[in-house]
């Protein structure tokens, strides 16, 4: 592990990669602060640039920096104008905004930054411990176990979609998997479902689909509902005192410790993610707080900021565990990162640590660096970065649309790709109107080829579907996947009767 860490340090501490971390964090914070634009949209927009960089380590470091910056930026807009940029920072606004209204915006931002830094750092340490262990276990897996593991991942993502949403999430997963079968696959050397259209020979573009699923619907929502892009009262002018007292630090320290651990393990679970971690963290801390402190929650309690912030950052780090060790994304954001890695000819999975340790460890080291950059560079710059909230929507929205279009165009250099993007974007907006979760579609699309490859390999090895009952672990994982889908529905029905 020490050797790997040194390799990571050597890779991450090059001039280019430090620039990538700083640039990524700044861009992420800047855009993440804009209400409505979440990390998925921002990372999707940044992917063509990351791919153009060419070096997978630098590209992944840039995207990880953007991810952390976006989450931090989301917290800032939650605190300053009560408009969370991302779902995982909604819980931060419960106490952050009341503090800002009471003239303590600086203090709230400092607590958020310290909690984020601690959550991210503790998460990175846990990632260093657990990822190699999980990767070494995963090396024992055969293609049939990989197939079953991906089915578990997809089922878990659907199961976490919420009450009444499991069927919709599964339908979206199947739609994503179906879309992944369009075009020439590596497995059969023949085009499938192209209907004779030349543009579909190479299948749908991942970047185009990511933009269409997240960035474009978000922009359309901003147009439809102007209150989503509200800039609110200009509280950014009140950011004066960024200091916190020793007593306050002592109060939030155990909260940060507890929620960093809890958040990390929630983040590891496919489908759970930073949003659940932050809400759960907030709820747990409110419940275990002394009675007089419980009443403060929702009115500007410092624990109410520290808990969700440390939990969501630790969960962000935790979500890298299945991505880096198994090659299975647990969330929409890590699915986009997986797509970027595949585009850079990197195959995440247990062999990543062995075959390309510099990438694996550089990402982990860049997590430390990213959190450090957010704490020592972005925090003092917040009063200036917050000026972005003053950009009128009349200028902001055309720029978001333009960057969305450019992202798809740069990736393929084909104007037809823009029309596909617009078509899918309209479809995705309609799906959002009808409350269909879109992340399972993208995850299904990205995992589709991997799932089919492993399924085909297992079928060939066992000359049919015999691998399901001949390999106990495969059978166990598939039963577990079925239970994940069936149990919430059964519980739901029982609760009704």
């Amino acid at each position, binding site marked *: 592990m020490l050797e790997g860490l040194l390799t990571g340090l050597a890779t991450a501490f090059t001039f280019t990669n430090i620039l990538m971390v700083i640039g990524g964090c700044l861009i992420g914070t800047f855009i993440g602060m804009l209400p409505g634009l979440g990390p998925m949209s921002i990372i999707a927009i940044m992917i063509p*640039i990351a791919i*153009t960089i060419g070096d997978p380590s630098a590209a992944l470091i840039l995207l990880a920096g953007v991810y952390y910056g976006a989450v931090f930026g989301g917290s800032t807009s939650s605190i300053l104008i009560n408009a969370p940029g991302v779902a995982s920072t909604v819980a931060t606004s419960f106490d952050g905004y009341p503090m800002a209204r009471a003239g303590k915006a600086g203090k709230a931002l400092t607590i958020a930054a310290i909690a984020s830094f601690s959550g991210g750092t503790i998460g990175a340490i846990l990632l260093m411990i657990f990822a190699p262990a999980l990767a070494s276990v995963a090396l024992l897996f055969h293609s049939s176990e990989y197939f079953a593991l991906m089915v578990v991942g997809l089922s878990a993502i659907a199961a976490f979609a919420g*009450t*009444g*949403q*499991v*069927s*919709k999430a*599964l*339908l979206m997963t*199947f*739609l994503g*998997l*179906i879309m992944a*079968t369009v075009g020439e696959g590596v*497995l*059969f050397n*023949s085009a*499938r*479902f192209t209907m004779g259209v030349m543009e579909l020979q190479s299948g749908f573009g991942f970047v185009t689909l990511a933009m269409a699923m997240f960035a474009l619907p978000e922009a*359309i*929502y901003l*147009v*439809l*509902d*102007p209150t*989503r892009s509200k800039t609110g009262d200009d509280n950014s002018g009140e950011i004066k005192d960024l200091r916190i007292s020793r007593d306050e630090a002592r109060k939030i320290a155990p909260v940060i410790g507890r929620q960093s651990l809890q958040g990390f393990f929630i983040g590891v679970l496919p489908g759970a993610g930073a949003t659940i971690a932050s809400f759960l963290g907030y709820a747990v801390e409110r419940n275990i707080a002394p009675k007089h402190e419980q009443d403060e929650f929702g009115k500007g309690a410092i624990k109410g900021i520290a808990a969700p912030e440390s939990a969501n950052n630790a969960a962000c780090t935790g979500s890298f565990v299945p991505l880096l060790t198994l090659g299975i994304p647990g969330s929409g954001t890590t699915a986009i990162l997986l797509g970027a890695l595949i585009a850079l000819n990197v195959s995440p999975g247990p062999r990543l640590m062995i075959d390309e340790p510099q990438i694996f460890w550089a990402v982990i080291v860049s997590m430390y660096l990213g959190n450090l950059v957010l704490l020592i560079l972005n925090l003092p710059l917040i009063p200036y970065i917050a000026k972005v909230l003053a950009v*009128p*929507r*009349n*200028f902001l*929205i*055309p*720029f978001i*649309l*333009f960057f969305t*279009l450019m992202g798809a165009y*740069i990736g393929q*250099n084909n*104007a037809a790709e*823009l*029309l596909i993007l*617009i078509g899918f*974007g*309209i479809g995705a907006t*309609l799906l*959002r*109107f*009808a*409350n*269909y979760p879109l992340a399972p579609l993208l995850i299904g699309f990205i995992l589709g080829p991997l799932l*089919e490859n492993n*399924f*085909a390999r297992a*079928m*060939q090895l*066992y000359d049919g579907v015999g691998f399901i009952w001949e390999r106990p672990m495969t059978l166990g994982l598939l039963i577990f996947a079925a239970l994940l889908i069936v149990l919430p529905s059964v519980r*739901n*029905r029982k609760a*009704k009767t």
Partner: protein
Amino acid sequence: MALDRWIALALFFVCVLYGYSAYFLMDDLLPPIMRRSPIWPSSFPKVLAVGGVLMSLSVLFNLERSSEQPQSDINLSRLWEYNVGQAVLLLGLMVVYAILLRPFGFLGSTFLFLVGGSLILGERRFGLMALVSAIAAGTVWYLVDAVLGIFLSPFPFFLMGS
């Protein structure tokens, strides 16, 4: 019928068509040697088609029997209260941009897209719009073309020569 069920119905037909193609059309083209393999190009799509059909029926007939549906951010029954016109015009502008990008060149079409977008959204400070759009188009072109090395034709085809 609610929008989610209309969408489920549409997806049901998509899955049926996809399944029909996988079950009845794809295998005819398979070379004889491939027929001895346990896995065919149509094997995985067949599984997906069945799954897609079952899930679309589950949503269509609400087999999950859930009364609590999460509220959409946009209230569709009051859609006219939102800026639907602006959204449609912006989508139209995006289509025009996609069509004009190559023949009109990056700089001109981007400038017009940004100015047009602001105009649709109600901006009337024309000088500022033109200045911001011109700077943005020029900067992005320089970054993409010169820094990232991705060729973007800056001018219309008739100015670019052969």
